[in-house]
């Protein structure tokens, strides 16, 4: 008990624990859609793209970094979808070009002008130091927004994730639903970036969702379980980070990876069968012929 209570005597840890736990839950929640749509690479790419915006805003207008980096992320997400939709190059290639260019710009800006905000390493691997009340408020606002989007668009999101063609034929505006999900994703990455880190956000989008998929065949349960698993990873990861003196993002991801290994072993063949098609980029929907 002492082990659990002692770090809580520090204000920075209280804030860090709150943000890490909520971040884990948010990424676990959003990650279900990302993983089932085969978009985990977009999550990975977007976190890097947002880093570009984050770096630029830290240097030129730090007080507006959430807004600036958020808009940067949303613009990148829309650029990726738009380039991929035209069909000349695949989504993976579009992500490779747009987001890594944005990341490179961020690194170049940091190297050239130095950082006026959180340190470079913290942005990459996550840190619990220097979390402000406004960051917590932003995180809560994005959580409420993501929750409302899913609550009010649950069936449309599910239908367009399962079968976008039939959803479109049933009158659902698939492009609009996708754009909404991209906005939720970009904002979720942005507000969790500080604690989890640019390079590790994608892992927290994927791991809780895959673990949850191994445990259930129901979409509703997968959403609930993934959120809970993400939350626990954030909570346990933060304590480990405190005691190990390692960046918070690394510990959160390692706890997630451990959860994956345990569930993978315990659920055996059934769990592996369930998760076999998760994030399959060349899934069956690619086979529609003329």
């Amino acid at each position, binding site marked *: 008990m002492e082990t659990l209570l002692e770090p809580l005597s520090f204000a920075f840890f209280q804030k860090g624990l709150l943000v890490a736990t909520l971040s884990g839950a948010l990424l676990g929640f959003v990650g279900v859609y990302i993983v089932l749509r085969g978009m985990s690479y977009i999550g990975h790419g977007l976190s890097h793209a947002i880093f570009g915006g984050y770096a630029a805003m830290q240097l030129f207008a730090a007080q507006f970094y959430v807004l600036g980096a958020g808009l940067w992320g949303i613009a990148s997400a829309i650029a990726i979808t738009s380039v991929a939709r035209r069909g000349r190059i695949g989504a993976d290639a579009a992500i490779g070009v747009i987001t890594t260019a944005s990341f490179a710009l961020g690194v170049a800006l940091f190297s050239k002008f130095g950082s006026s905000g959180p340190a470079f390493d913290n942005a990459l691997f996550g840190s619990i130091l220097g979390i402000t009340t406004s960051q917590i408020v932003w995180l809560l606002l994005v959580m409420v927004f993501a929750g409302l989007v899913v609550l009010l668009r649950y*069936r449309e999101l599910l239908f367009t994730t399962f079968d976008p063609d039939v959803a479109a*034929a049933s009158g659902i505006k698939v492009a609009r639903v996708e754009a909404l999900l991209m906005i939720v994703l970009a904002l979720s990455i942005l507000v969790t970036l500080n604690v989890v880190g640019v390079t590790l956000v994608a892992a927290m989008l994927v791991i809780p969702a895959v673990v949850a998929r191994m445990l259930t065949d129901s979409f509703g349960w997968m959403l609930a379980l993934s959120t809970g698993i993400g939350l626990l990873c954030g909570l346990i990861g933060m304590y480990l980070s405190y005691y190990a003196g390692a960046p918070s993002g690394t510990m959160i991801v390692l706890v997630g990876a451990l959860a994956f290994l345990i569930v993978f072993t315990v659920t055996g063949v059934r769990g592996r069968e369930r998760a076999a*098609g998760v994030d399959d980029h060349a*899934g069956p929907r690619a086979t529609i012929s003329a």
Partner: protein
Amino acid sequence: MTVSTLIELSAVNAGYGRTTVLHGVNLTIDGDEFTGIVGPSGAGKTTLLRVLLGLISPSGGTVTRSEDVRVAYVPQLETVDWKFPVTVAECILMARTEHRFWPWPSADERRAVSAVLERLGIADLADRHIRELSGGQQQRMFLARALLREPSVLLLDEPTSGVDINTRHDVLHLLGDLHADGMAIVLTTHDLNGMAAHLPNLVCVNGHIVAEGSPREVIIPSVLEETFGARLDVLEHLGMPIVVDTAHPTREAI
């Protein structure tokens, strides 16, 4: 009784990007339609279906829909992600996005789902994962989802592909019952003989509409050769045309 026209295609060209798959298609879908679209792979059957669904805008010609047309679509089983985490009930409820946006079903929706599952004979499968269904049950589940939309026209992409003979028979009889209840039905298929036995109207497609009419009118060697690009013989059995491959002697036989 007059039959209303639900969808009308006039001189429609359609395709993907710069590739035009269908040329100059004229087709009318009436309220009492029960039509099979037949043709070889790549002939434009699915493209035609997608034009009817409104998923593809034609690059030429016009598509006219009646104001009250309500379309439901049953996809090819092969294009479905069977590992996706949904139960049969969750899958069927996707049809009700317009009626309610809350995630959980209303009492009315639960009753409607039970009724449609009962009608299709899969009432005991509601809580099963979709992967656990047989081919026939999978087809019935998608029919249930389509019926829950209360459509005026049902469009099906290859509903008899990849299922055994009994299931094919069941599915076609089920579609016959739905048609008898007043629903317009259009489906694509490779299965000429199955269609000849069950459907009153066929449309032969190969980049354009080669012929349209009853099975006796269109299942003739000249139409089949233009549609499939191969010589096929037609026999008659109990008054129905049956398509058979023309025998080509093997090298050993020569």
